[in-house]
Structure formats: C-alpha cells, structure tokens
C-alpha cells in the first residue's frame, strides 16, 4: 500500500479517495473474473477470485481507519467532511459488491462440474452490463462528475429488465424439465446477485452526487425489477 509521504491534510484526503478507487478496482476485477469463470468454465480463475475478496476487506478496513483518523484529528467540514463520510459509505457498498461477486465465483465452481448450458449466455450479458455500470460509477467518483453518476443511477432499469427476462426464462426452463432445477437455481441466484450489484452501483452513484453537490437526489430511483410479482403459468409449457 502506498502510504508513503502522506503528510498534509490534503494528502490524507487524497489518499482516502485513491484507496476507494483501488478498492473499486479490485471489485471490478473480481466481478469480471467471476463472469469470465462462468463463461469460460474456468474453475482455477473462480478459485483465485474467491481468494481476492480478502483484499477488498483489507482495503475497506484501511479506508475506515484513514477516515476515522481524519474525522478525529482534522475535524473536516464542507466538501472534506462529505468526502470522508461518502468514502465510508462507498467502501461499504463496494464491499457488498465484492461479496456478491465472490458468491458468483463460488456458484461458477458448482456449475462447472455440470454439463455446459446455453442459459449462461444471458447471464454473461447481464454481467457485462453490471460491469459497465460499476466502471461508469467509479469513473464518475474519480472525476467527481455528478452528471455521469446520475446517468448510472438512471440506467439501472436496464439491468432490472435483463433480470426479469432471465428470471422468466429460467422459470420456464425448470417447469419444462425438473431435472434442471438445481442447476437453474444456481443460475437464478447468480442473476439475483448481478441485479444486486447493479443496485449497489446506483447507491454509489447517489453518494457521488451527494459528494459533489452536497444534496441528495430527490426523486425516487426508477425501479424495473418486477420479479417479486412474476409467475409463469404452468399450462403454458406442458
């Protein structure tokens, strides 16, 4: 860790947001690796990804330590206070993303023991969409760009729509052939995890907007996840 030569207050604040970016980078790599492991049926990669979640926890503790120190010793106000507080919140969100990605890697390990299924294609596409969102929001954080963050916040609906379509597809699949239930359940959880990653990315977007503007986003976030009320009639497939 580069804790070299950090002497000034400015430097301490900068170090905090650099560590947040680094933590985000590890989460991005973890999510990317988990999706690749699923797509390429690469169990060794999945193992490595599960291991790398530790690094995220380390970085989260480091951000917490640095932020608490700044709060206690420097008593920041205004944008400096917001930076410190949002760093704590964003690192929480990233830590959750790391956990979800790790869980995907674990499920990839299980799926790789079974026969390959076409259904992973939709998930891979959804995963790419999540990666795009995560990258965009972390870029917005690095650039302190509220507009870019708002874009991420609005685009979450696309992930929700993908999730709905995968959800229905998997339900239909399971009804057609009950032998696929255990496999499809893993796929369903992966889809749910990805959908959650999208939600955490929008939470980060909200923090970025708060950090740059000093006020929260007013309107309600667009909600496209309809699976809570989604069913597929049994007759349809028999």
């Amino acid at each position, binding site marked *: 860790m580069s804790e070299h*030569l950090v002497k000034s207050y400015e430097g301490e604040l900068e170090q905090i947001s650099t560590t947040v*970016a680094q933590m985000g*980078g590890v989460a991005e*790599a973890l999510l990317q690796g988990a999706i690749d492991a699923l797509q390429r049926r690469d169990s060794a990669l999945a193992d490595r990804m599960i291991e790398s979640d530790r690094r995220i926890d380390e970085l989260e503790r480091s951000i917490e330590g640095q932020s608490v120190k700044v709060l206690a010793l420097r008593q920041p106000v205004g944008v400096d206070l917001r930076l410190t507080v949002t760093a704590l919140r964003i690192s929480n969100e990233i830590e959750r993303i790391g956990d979800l990605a790790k869980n995907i890697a674990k499920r990839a390990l299980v799926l790789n023991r079974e026969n390959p299924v076409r259904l992973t294609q939709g998930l891979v596409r959804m995963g790419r969409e999540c990666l795009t969102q995560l990258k965009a929001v972390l870029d917005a954080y690095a650039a302190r760009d509220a507009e870019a963050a708002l874009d991420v916040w609005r685009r979450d609906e696309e992930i929700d729509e993908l999730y709905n379509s995968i959800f229905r597809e998997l339900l239909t699949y399971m009804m057609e052939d009950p032998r696929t239930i255990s496999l499809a359940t893993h796929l369903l959880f992966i889809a749910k995890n990805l959908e959650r990653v999208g939600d955490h990315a929008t939470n980060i977007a909200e923090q970025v907007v708060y950090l740059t503007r000093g006020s929260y986003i007013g309107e309600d976030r667009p909600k496209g996840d309809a699976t809570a009320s989604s069913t597929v009639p049994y007759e349809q497939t028999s």
Partner: protein
Amino acid sequence: MSLWLAVTLIVAAALGAAAFAFIHAPHSLAGAPAAAPNEAAGGGLADITAALQALPHAALLLDETGRVAAKNAAAAELTGAAVGKPFAASFRVPDLHAAIEQVRDGADTAEASFTLPVPVERSIEAHVAPVEIGGRRYQLAFLHDITAMVRVEKMRADFVANASHELRTPLTSLSGFLETIMGPAKDDPEATQRFLEIMQSQAARMRRLIDDLLSLSRIELNEHMRPAAKADLAAIVRDVVDAGQPLLTRANVKVLIEVAEGTRPVTGERDELVQIAQNLIDNAVKYGAEGGDIAVRLFPGPDGTTTALSVADKGLGIAREHLPRLTERFYRVDATASRERGGTGLGLAIVKHILNRHRGRLEIESEPGKGSKFTIFVPVWQPVPAASAVAG
C-alpha cells in the same frame, strides 16, 4: 521486448544528454514552464513528456507517491491519467498497480497483463521498470494494446476447433460402422450393405467439407488479385441450373430464371462465379419450401456499375439476429438441419470471399416464415481498365 528496450533508451537519453532535446526540438518543451508539480525534481520531466509523446504506445511515468509525473496522449486516452494526480485514482487495475508497487519496492522490472472488459474488450500488456531522474526514483509504465493479436489468435483457435469438430463427426460414424461390420454384423450381408451406404454418405460429407476448406484457402490466396476476365452471369446461372437438374427434380423444385433488359456481363473469374451461383441455388434448394419455386433474377445494379443476381426462395426464412453472422465460417442457424441436408457451414463464407476478390457485395433479405433472398452485386465488365488508366 525490443520496443521496451527502446523506451528505456529514449528515456535514458532524455535524462542525460541535452542533445536529445536539441535533436527533437519540435517536440521539446524545454524552456517552457513545466506544469508538473514535480518541477523541483529536475528539468528532465518536460523532455520526458516529449519523448513519451513520440512513442507509438501508452507510456507514463509515476513518482514515489504514485502520482503521474509525465504521460503521453495515448496513456491519457487509455487510462485517464492526469499529471499530478494519483494514478491509482484514475485507472483501477489491481494487477497493474501490484506490478508498479513491486518496482517501487525495488524490483528491476515487472509485468502485468489484463483485459478491460467494457465498453469494448481490450487486452493490455504492461511493463514497468524503475528510472532515476535528477536523483529521484520513478516508475516507467509502458502499456501495449494487444487486442488485435488476441482476437486473431482466438479466431484461429476457433477455426481449428470448428474444422476438427466438423471432420470428427463423420469420422466417428465411419469407424463405428466399420467396427459393426467387422464384428456383430459380420454374417449379415443385408445390414452390411445398409451400413456401407451410410459410410459412403459420411465419406462424401467429409470430402465436401475438405473440398470447401481447400477452395476457401485457394480463394483467400488470390483475394487481393482482381480478376480481369469477362464473364456472362446469365449463362453461368443457366449452366448451373442445367447441371443441377437431376437434383432439382428429386427435390421437386423448379428454378425460374429471369434476365432483365440491360443486364451486362461482369468482370470475373468464371469458375468462381459458378461456385457462387451453385452455393446460392443449393442453399435455396436446401432451405426453401419443398415443391416451392426458386426465383433467380439478373438485373442491372442500382448505380449502373454492377450487375445483380438474386436468388429467392419461399422457405423457412432466417431470423434477424442471424443475418449479420451468416457469412462466418461454420456459423449455422440450425446446425442439425444444415448437416442433414449436406451443408458444410462454409458455403456463404466462400461466397463472401469470392465477392471480396471481385469487389462485389452480398445482400441478404429474409423474413421468418416467408423466405429469403440473397442478392450479389458484381462490377460490370470494363475493357482493359489498366490501359485506359495509362492513356488518361
């Protein structure tokens, strides 16, 4: 690796010799006030920025605190690095930062390779090495975009995998039947006869595949040489239909040929145009509706510089999402149906490559349930274009 050496040399030159700034005067910013906060570290950084700028790949210099001390435009574009800002804040690739840290902690050199998955997948190979400028230690990171290489490699691997898979299937069936004939069916002439027929058709399938592969590689060999001969597409189509008559009768399909007024001969290799017509009509027979007619039309292209040939069937049609990929090798809408009908998965790839060589193009229109129409446009024949160019 040699490029990497060159980078180190250039930077070394920028450090020591003032001659470097002199030679590269147009690039040099020497004398201009340096924007970098590391100005105090010595006057070398402006020269280094100029040197980095002359490199074909992304390169940047980091100071001991992990801040960007100098970068070229390619690096800014790829990583969003800004001079004076911590590099880790703008570019979040853990493997690269691990390599940079290794060098910062004293390693002679470190390498990292990684992919940036979104928005477009890019593969990057990074080399990091330490440099000393004005008594301070820096890390020089050199990022080489190897996306094109990786893609070519993947295409080659895919092609080999597909071709071997296509060849293995009939071979498996051949050896399976051979075993049966030598073993359990040894004294059963009736079964033996039936198996031999299947083996014959599998052998024919392998031969078709190998023929297609060979003609594809032959066409690719000549792809940059434009044909110069004159060819009559209408006559070619008639020949192909005449030769295929027994097959058409068996499939209960009629081919209606219509030649529009003003259809001109084309510049092309007769044998290759025969292959195009053959492939398009074969496809129409294979995937068109049984007993349906195939409409073949020849007409002048829209701008008058080409002659068009369209082959339309009234068959299953092709869903929209498949259209852009139809000319990929071994791409099939329905692999099983294609193999049953004796398809190799290479027909349209061959058509595409022949048309590339002829500077022609292919248009596919299709609607599921209604049928498909394949139209090719081939440049009309021009008498000896080379001579007219000399005269003009």
